[in-house]
């Protein structure tokens, strides 16, 4: 791969409504293996943020440790980023969000980071309905330490080393549904058509939005016997339907064919239009989503798409009852009760 990226950009490159071009959402050059699914996900995040016209500096990128957690360096170079410690991204994101409720939070994690070392933190950030996008770049293996099976590897799936995995996998979407996430979706790094609108919808959702994105590891887990390789995933994909995301300021112009259609209005007024492949999948029914995941798995299929959304549940700040001003913007005048209040406290202690 090349380490030189041309600076040239077409002078008439399309700008979004804030005047930013796509380049304003790019980051440093990726150092991941050529063909890594994670780079496609970074590109999808860039595309989604560009199309949503989010001011780049209003995003905070937070990650743990691992190949996936390196990727925030490769998108949104004008945003602050925090590559923290292994499995602890959820707690760092929780604290960051409490400090400033006005930023957009993107947490990037991997299957080792979220399903093993950080499984506890993953569980609890779901429960808090923290307002953030949480993406797991799921390749079923530990890339940086050369390909050991992770906790999301399917039974019987074999990595490059060839030994089939004997252990029950953890399905993170199932976990998120059970633990209270208010937006749950699954996608595939190779399916940009599906992934970009899902990310846009997730970023617009107020509350905890979880996306499990199957992202093949080209170096250690892309062989025929692996269930997370490009070939296997492409052959076994089943989608809940196609997702169209309509931002709040945009008129709905798309012409949806009659059939199993459903519209979900998010808290900010934007609309998710879902054209479903089949009847029976309701995106506001946790149990149905769980059942659909199980049914597809039984058929050897990976169900992707938007699985669940509940746009109106209170997020962590609402549950806390915090002021609308970001806490970090409060100063001495706002925060310090002063000497008079202290004198009253003293007299109660005598």
């Amino acid at each position, binding site marked *: 791969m090349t380490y030189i990226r041309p600076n040239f950009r077409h002078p008439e490159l399309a700008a979004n409504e804030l005047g930013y071009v796509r380049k304003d959402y790019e980051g440093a050059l990726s150092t991941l293996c050529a063909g890594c699914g994670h780079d496609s996900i970074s590109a999808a995040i860039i595309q989604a943020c560009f199309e949503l016209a989010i001011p780049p500096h209003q995003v905070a990128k937070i990650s743990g440790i691992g190949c996936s957690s390196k990727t925030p360096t490769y998108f949104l170079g004008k945003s602050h980023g925090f590559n*923290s*410690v292994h499995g602890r991204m*959820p*707690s760092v994101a929780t*604290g960051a969000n409490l*400090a400033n409720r006005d930023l957009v939070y993107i947490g990037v994690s991997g299957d080792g980071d979220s399903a093993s070392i950080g499984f506890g933190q993953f569980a609890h950030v779901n429960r808090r309905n923290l307002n953030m996008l949480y993406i797991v770049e799921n390749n079923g293996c530990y890339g940086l330490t050369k390909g050991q099976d992770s906790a999301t590897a399917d039974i019987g799936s074999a990595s490059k080393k060839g030994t089939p995995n004997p252990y029950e996998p953890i399905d993170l979407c199932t976990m998120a549904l059970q633990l209270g996430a208010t937006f749950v979706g699954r996608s595939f790094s190779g399916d940009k058509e599906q992934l970009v609108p899902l990310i846009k919808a997730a970023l617009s959702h107020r509350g905890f939005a979880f996306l499990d994105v199957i992202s093949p590891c080209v170096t250690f887990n892309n062989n025929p016997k692996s269930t997370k390789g490009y070939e296997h995933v492409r052959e076994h994909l089943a989608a809940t339907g196609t997702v169209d995301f309509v931002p709040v300021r945009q008129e709905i112009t798309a012409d949806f064919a009659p059939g199993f259609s459903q519209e979900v209005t998010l808290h900010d007024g934007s609309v998710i239009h879902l054209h479903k492949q089949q009847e029976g999948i309701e995106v506001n029914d946790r149990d149905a989503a769980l059942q659909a995941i199980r049914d597809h798995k039984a058929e050897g299929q990976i169900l992707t798409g938007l699985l669940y959304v509940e746009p109106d549940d209170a997020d962590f700040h609402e549950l806390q009852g915090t002021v609308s001003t970001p806490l970090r913007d409060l100063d001495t005048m706002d925060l310090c009760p002063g000497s008079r209040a202290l004198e009253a406290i003293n007299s109660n202690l005598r």
Partner: protein
Amino acid sequence: MKAIQAVNDFVIRFANVNGTGSASANNLFAKAVFRMGIPVSPKNIFPSNIQGLPTWYEVRVSEKGYLGSRGGVDFMVAINPQSMAEDVASLEPGGYFFYDNTKPLDLRYHRSDINYIGIPLTDICRREYTDPRQRQLFKNVIYVGALSALLDLEFNVLKELIGEQFKGKEKLVAPNIHALELGYQYASENFKCPLGIRLERRDNVGDRILMEGNAAVGLGAVYGGATVAAWYPITPSTSVVEAFDKYANRLRIDPGSGDKKFAIAQAEDELAAMGMVVGAAWNGARAFTATSGPGVSLMSEFLGLAYFAEVPVVLVDVQRAGPSTGMPTRTQQSDLFAAAYASHGDTKHVLLFPSTPKECFDMGAQSFELADQLQTPIILMTDLDLGMNDNMSEPLEWDDSKAYDRGKVFNAEQLESMKERFGRYLDIDDDGICYRTYPGTHPEKGAFFTRGTSRDEYAIYTESGDVYVRNMERLLKKFETAKNYVPAPEFFPAKEATRDGVIFFGTSTASSLEALDQLAEEGVHIDGMRVRAFPFNREVEDFVEQHDRVFVVEQNRDGQLRKMLIIECDIDPKKLPSVRYYGGMPITAREIRRQIHQLRGGATVTKIRRKVG
């Protein structure tokens, strides 16, 4: 028979069963003595259990103002049959044993050298009350009433306190006062009151307050501008965040909306608690957590990150007896190493050592200032003794002219006017402290990547050894700078010139000062120094240098402060004899005095030598 004669100078201990409501009656007693102008030092000695096990409450009454644990008991209020054998044995000769004589006392509890005061508490309750819960609760109030007669504890003061305690619940005032009267009446009719051991009103308290250290730390966090608290419950630190919650709900509610100008997250464990603090502090809020030793172990990973990535976090460590789960409800000063050098690799953290509730408040607030100024973790090292007991203290003060100093932070205007490239880890001022930016400050400038990996001055990942070492050396320079920011030690010169010194800190202070007074009376003069922070300031090094021998007093097995002095200040270990007590109860003046005598003279120590065969 000999009976201890003492006015305003004794130790009284209450032996109760936990979960029986004795705590508030015992508090009432201590507070009443305090209201009579006599200094008190109450201590809870409680089990790691919620109901049914023995618990003690000890009050040292000292008109001279000695607040450290004294050792020994002069007056025992023995309410708990379970611990009676132990309670009888712990009395000083000539002491008083107050017990419920509804049933005759077991012969095994008879000692010929103590005085017995039997009052039929159960009988009185049975006669007065029908409800079993009332019988149990009022029994406690009755014995306080009896003590009022026996010790000359002013009855009006008790009445006044009951009135304050049940303000808004006036229905409860009369029954409580009635219970006090029952005890008072029985004692004055059946004993010659007051006893040889008694109280007399003084004016030795002044404007001082009685407060738990943990409450003071929580209040300090409110005043210090903390907006995010993340925590996981653990004894003995739990009441720090509970106090922050209580005070913030009173003092930090937006009057217009009723919304909170703070957030409290109860995390899934201590790792997450510290992670949240790191995230909040990185994003520009003042944030803290409180824990005890086991939590410090779990937080070490994040402390290393905060040290290396230079995130200003505040951690309150209310120490208890370790290692591992240790004795969760006993005190120690044994987390110094764990805190000072928390996490792998070369790390060092700033520690503060408060010794009174006022200092818990001051340093509680100051921690946030220091964290922002130094951009590094600040660890407030308190302990169970200070944190969970009512300690007598100077009143709390606040200077209203003070505005928070958020340290070196570039705002949008500064970034806008900046011509050169922003470098998060550029040592512009040559003090090791660099300029940071909060996320979301400026559309084009000032963004950087925070990471636990090595990076260059512009926060770009690097594996260059030279760049890595440059950064590590700068962190060391910053630690040197910290010496000028942290609180200076307090000096207690002896009345006569001496070549001996003693160093102590935190809750070893009161007992150390008392021991110094006792030694001075015996003609042994020693200069004292109370260390208030790590890294050690220049004054601490000078103190050691100016003396031939410096005793180091602390409450842990390994002499941790002593070893840190040896390592950090490059001191000859022979120069620093160690005085230690770590049994989980607060260190006493008696113990310090005994050990110093032993270390000085050695006359009373017989060395064990193996026989030469």
